[in-house]
C-alpha cells in the first residue's frame, strides 16, 4: 500500500507541474502525521505507548484515562481490556531528550526484554574437565543403576559451584568420598 502511494507521487512529480506535486506531498506528509496521532489528544503522540490491541496513545493521556476509571480499564478505541503493565512504549530515535519533565505522571512503563538463552553446554557432567566429574552413590539393580549414575544419563545435572567457594570445596570432598566408597564397594563385590 505505502509503496504504491509513493510510486504515484513519484510519477506525478515527474510528469506534473511544480505547484501540483507540492500540495500532493504535503497531503501525504499530513497522512503520515495523522497515523501517529494519539487517539485521545489527537496530537502527534508524545511518550508514545501502544496497547496490546495495537492502539497508539501518549502515555500521559492514557494514564489519565486509566486513572479516570480505575475499576473498568478498557482501551478507549476498541474497549479491549487494558492495563498499565500491558502497554509497550515506543522509542523513536532521539525522542527522549525533547520531552518536558512531567512530575505528576509516573514514568512510562519500561520495555521488557528477556535475554536469549545461553547456549546449553553439550553433555553436562560427562567429561572430567572443568565442570567436574561427579561420583554419586545409590542402591539399585546393580549394573544398571551403576551405569546410569556414573554416566549421567537422563536429567542434566546442575553445574558445579564456582571455584573457591565453600560449596565448591564441599562438593569436591563429597565427590572424593563417594568415589572411594564406590571403589570399596566394587572391591567387596569382586571379593565376595
Amino acid at each position, binding site marked *: 500500500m505505502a509503496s504504491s502511494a509513493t510510486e504515484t507521487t513519484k510519477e506525478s512529480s515527474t510528469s506534473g507541474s511544480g505547484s501540483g506535486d507540492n500540495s500532493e506531498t504535503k497531503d501525504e506528509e499530513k497522512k503520515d502525521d495523522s497515523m501517529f496521532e494519539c*487517539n*485521545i*489528544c*489527537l*496530537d502527534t503522540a508524545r511518550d508514545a505507548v501502544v496497547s496490546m490491541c495495537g*492502539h497508539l496513545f501518549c502515555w500521559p*493521556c492514557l494514564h*489519565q*484515562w486509566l486513572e*479516570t476509571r480505575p475499576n473498568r480499564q*478498557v482501551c*478507549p*478505541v476498541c*474497549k479491549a481490556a487494558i492495563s498499565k503493565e500491558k502497554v509497550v512504549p515506543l522509542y523513536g530515535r532521539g525522542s527522549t531528550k525533547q520531552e518536558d519533565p512531567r512530575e505528576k505522571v509516573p514514568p512510562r512503563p519500561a520495555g521488557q526484554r528477556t535475554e536469549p538463552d545461553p547456549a546449553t553446554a553439550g553433555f553436562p557432567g560427562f567429561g572430567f574437565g572443568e565442570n567436574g566429574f561427579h561420583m554419586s552413590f545409590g542402591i539399585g539393580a546393580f549394573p544398571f543403576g551403576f551405569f546410569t549414575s556414573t554416566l549421567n544419563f537422563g536429567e542434566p545435572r546442575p553445574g558445579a559451584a564456582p571455584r573457591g567457594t565453600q560449596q565448591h570445596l564441599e562438593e569436591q570432598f563429597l565427590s572424593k568420598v563417594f568415589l572411594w566408597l564406590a571403589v570399596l564397594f566394587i572391591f567387596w563385590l569382586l571379593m565376595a
Partner: protein
Amino acid sequence: MAGMSPSERRLQKELMSLVKEPPPGVSVDPDIAERNLLHWIIDIRGAAGTLYEGERFQLQFKFSNKYPFDSPEVTFVGQNIPVHPHVYSNGHICLSILTDDWSPALSVQSVCLSIMSMLSSCKEKQRPPDNAFYVKTCNKNPKKTKWWYHDDSV
C-alpha cells in the same frame, strides 16, 4: 494554538476537521463554537428514508475542562425535539456513550453520528414511557441522571 488547555486544543482540532469535512447531515457554525470552545450548537438533518427525513434538529454540546476524559453534556435544544423512545421532551437523550460507555477516543463527530443512527433506526415515533415524570423530576444536567440502558434495538 499555544496557551490553550489540552481540552481546548483538542476541541479546536475537532472543530477544524468538522468544519472542513462535515459528515453528511451534520453542520456546525464555526463562529458560535469559536466564541466559546466549551459550548457548541450543531445542526443535524434527519437522514433520507427514515422517519425523520427532512426534519432539522439542534444538538447542544457542553464540555468540561476535563474533556475528553469526561463526556460532553449533549442535549437536543431549540424548537424541534425529535419524538423518539430515547429522547425526552426536554431534549435529554438516553444514550450509553454519553455517560457509562464514554471513551476519550469518541468525538463530537462520532457522537453526532451515533445520535443520527439512533434516530434512523427508529420504527415508531413516540416519547419514552416515563417522559412526563422524568421531565418534571430530572436535573437540568442529563449527566446527573442515573440512566438505565436496557434497550439496544433503537
